[in-house]
């Protein structure tokens, strides 16, 4: 388990938990980001800038600031399985 900031790019990830307060959780939920959703981090990113997440489950893209990315915990989905 790791935060989105440490997660590798272009690998399938699963949202494990969102550590933030209710505001962030609600906002992510309403944008269609749930626990157990499959996501991929976009390879394009700016040094110290926001992170682009593509949600494979709902097929949407969302940019999140680094502060929020730190609070989204993910695990890598093993392709071999």
């Amino acid at each position, binding site marked *: 388990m790791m935060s989105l900031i440490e997660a590798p790019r272009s690998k399938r990830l699963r949202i494990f938990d969102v550590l933030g307060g*209710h*505001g*962030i*959780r*609600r*906002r*992510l*939920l*309403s*944008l*269609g980001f*749930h*626990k157990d959703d499959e996501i991929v981090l*976009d390879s*394009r*990113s*700016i*040094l*110290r*800038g*926001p992170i*682009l997440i593509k*949600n494979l*489950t*709902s*097929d*949407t*893209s*969302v*940019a*999140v*600031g*680094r*502060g*929020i990315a730190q609070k989204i915990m993910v695990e890598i989905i093993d392709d071999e399985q």
Partner: protein
Amino acid sequence: MTTNNKHPDVIFIGQPNCGKSTLFNAAAGLRAETSNFPGTTVSHTHSKVNVNGKILNIIDLPGTYSLNPTDDAEKVALSHLFQEKPDIMINVVDASTLGRSLEMTFELMELRFPMVVALNMVDLAEKKGIVIDAQKLSNRLGIPVIPTIASHGRGIKELLETVVRILEVKQVPPVLTWSRDVEEAVSDLMESIPEDFPVVANRRFTAVKMIELEKSFFHKMLGFISPELTRALSQVKQDLERMHNVPAYEVIAAERHHLAMKIFEENAKVKRGRVSGTLEKLDDLIMHPLFGYIILLAVFLGFFWIIFKVGNPLETLLLQPFEQLRVILSQQFGEGVLFYLTDGLLQGVGGGVAIVLPYFVPLLFLMALLEDVGYLARAGFLMDIFMHRMGLHGKSVSPFILGFGCNVPAIISTRILESRRDRIITALLIPFIPCSARTTIILALVAFYMGPFWAVGFYFFNMLLVGILGRVISMFFKTPSPGLILEIPSLKIPSLRNVVNKVVIQLKAFLKFAWPILIAGSVALGLLQFFHLDRIVNIVLSPLVVKALGLPQELGVTLVFGFLRKELSMIMMLQALGVNYQALMTAITREQLIVFTVFVSFFIPCLSTVAIMWKEIGRRIALISVALNVSVAIILSIIIRLII
């Protein structure tokens, strides 16, 4: 509800970027705006349509991701939905993100108002490899599902005819049940709701919303809640939280999510591995960490270049008739009170037509274009890192850009920001953005008399000041900004109709709100001159104007009352000094010119801006804003006077 003498209310509701406003426009002919940047539609639009002899009153609500609002724009949408119960709802759904969109469809179904789903952008979904069986989906949901392609006008007739049919039979959606333990919790709470409680829509919906909604909004919607009910509510919430190990609202959200995924899988076929097209390749370039910024800079430079290229000649052209009319007026009325009154009126009207509109309309048009393409959201993404330095995030970019046109709609558009903190900081900074009225002053004074590089320098200094002020203001807030969460919609080919409609809507905020205040201020100033009160004001202000700023005493009225008609500060200055434009430098020095421009630019923006701030953000912040602007204007002018 419907009465016999009233046309039925049909609301269009859907998530941002689902093509809702495009569909609305297609249905209405014209008169709505659409947007590709989440949440910029902040007011709703009405129109009437005739479907085979039946008149429908159609209403377009701002896009909202769910019925649990997280920003003020969404709250506006939901207050409307809850308070003015519609006769029927059209839930517009982006077929290419059906899985997510269904969650809100379920929420709407829980209201149990008659409803129809418009499965929009089916063409785009098919391109993405998603094929949906609309009939099967309709059977599963128990409500009509009509496939539409709003941009081509396809499916609209069938949609509206279905609306009329459902209105006649008054068919309401069925209840889709959740897991047993959640259902039990909900019905426990339903039983605790007193008989005379002012329920929203129905008892089940009210109970669910009690569990889900944020407290403050919930109280606003439902009013007073008895202690017994509060106890029952926290008991139910605790039970849910204990059983599921997540906050109660997430239990409910998860129920809808699982149901949405299930129904999506049952009714749609997804082919993976689609090829990337030209737009995707362009997107890669736009979001590139290096080229992205080069493009951003080019877009912004081009943006302002076009605005000035269009605005400047237009301003000159439009000002002429007003000047001529003025000359005729003075010949007709002489120096009587009638002259000052009509002159004030004329200058107020002229200031709007000839000074604000030539810059504002092109700005709105270009901004709407960038938004419709999907670039504005990407600019927010790219700018986020800079906005962080001033304690804000990427979503504040769009209110700031709007501020270059007119501060009034810019302050209204801060509704898209989720946190009150971000809203206040952004709103306090907007008055420091040079709007089109102040830009004309900077162009006419600094650029004309001192050269274009001074004007560019002035702009640069202005932006730096906004950055520094942002940093300083955010120090007063203990909590940091919640940070950026912004949906990045797919790039798309813009639609001219959407862009034009958007311009019209934004322009209305200026025409309806700012302009009348501008005209009134102008008339007031005319009267002030007639009664020679300006001299008294000048004498009173002379310590500030002469001693502190080093300007001629005659400019006192211009400086202080400039906020009544900011755009005319320059003309007022010429009048006060009794010289014409070409001879200005004989009356004041270069240094005085700079001090004057700085003071006028940063002093209280204008009466309309203060008024909208009062209305939108609150009295306290409006007063703070005035105090902030006055102090910054005085301090900066003195500093500048001392260094040059």
